[in-house]
């Protein structure tokens, strides 16, 4: 049984009425968590969604092929987790991450990128990303990611 808790968000400095549970547990208990997958490559989105579905078969997945669409979907759907690529046309992941964090400082954004430079990681973590994972994502990496998405 899940406990309803008030969640203190250190960024907005307020108590928010969030249900406190980790994503894996919530899925097992039948909740459809909204997850946004953002990548300009269809292959990358398919790969990520396939590995995600291994652990969260009933997740409600939204897809975006660039940062601009991602920001719009984040605004309208308020997903619990965003998997975000960095190198994309129209609006890149850095800009999208910045806008998403401005909209919701508690957003859980996992950057999944081919850019494995230490400075890229520092930059996205400074912008508010929760984690950065090198591409290509696989089952092992996904499990580690999901285990860390705990409120």
């Amino acid at each position, binding site marked *: 049984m899940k406990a309803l808790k008030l969640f203190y968000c250190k960024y907005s400095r307020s108590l928010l009425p969030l249900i406190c549970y980790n994503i894996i547990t919530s899925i097992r208990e039948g909740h459809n968590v909204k997850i946004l997958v953002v990548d*300009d*490559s*269809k*292959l*990358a989105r*398919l*790969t990520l969604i*396939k590995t995600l579905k291994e652990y969260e078969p009933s997740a409600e997945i939204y897809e975006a092929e660039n940062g601009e669409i991602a920001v719009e979907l984040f605004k309208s759907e308020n997903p619990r987790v965003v998997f975000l690529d*960095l*190198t*994309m*046309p129209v609006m890149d992941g850095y800009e999208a991450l910045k806008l998403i964090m401005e909209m919701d400082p508690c957003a859980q954004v996992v950057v999944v*990128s*081919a*850019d*494995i*430079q*230490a*400075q*890229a990681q520092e930059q996205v973590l400074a912008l508010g990303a929760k984690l950065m994972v*090198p*591409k*290509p994502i696989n089952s092992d990496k996904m499990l580690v990611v999901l285990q860390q998405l705990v409120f």
Partner: protein
Amino acid sequence: MQTDEFTGDHLDVLKELMNIAMGNATASIADLLQAFGTMHIPHLAITDMDGLKNYIDDALGSYERYYVTKQLFGGIIGGEFIFVMTDESAANLGNYLYDVSQPNDADIMDAVIELTNILSSTIISRLTEELKTKVQFFAPSTEIISGNLLIGDEETLNYHKIIIVSTVMEFQSHKISGQIFILARDETIVRLRELIDQKLEELYA
């Protein structure tokens, strides 16, 4: 469908694999230069020799002198890796790697070859690793040429239908950048398509 035909899915897969390979290469060069590299979206085109010449003219512009390093690779898939730097970028690279304000031509040439070796081996190795195959590398050669002479008679004879994978390596803080072109030969296009089909089958399984 002809065996050498590429669908949008094939191109998307190749582009994404190139993106992953370029990410690895950028990180290696970032270590060498102790700087942050900006990643660019790879471009892909399937064309003939005339199309290749037009593509390279468009990509390189009207700059006069380029350091061009070419490296052949072969195996299940084969082709040519071409790395192009303006002489200004090459001088900046020589300047940084040799830590001298006026590097001589031999230093610059050596620095360009070193950089290209890292780029080509990292990119092609990662690309082939993702496609579950292997290639052999041949010794690279560097020369200084003008842009419109980039594609010589040898390439004209070797290539008919070509896949061009191109992207940019850019380290703004050091004013070092370069264009990368990977040319795949006729038979490689068929092999690449088969390897990508295997990858897609695994994905959809």
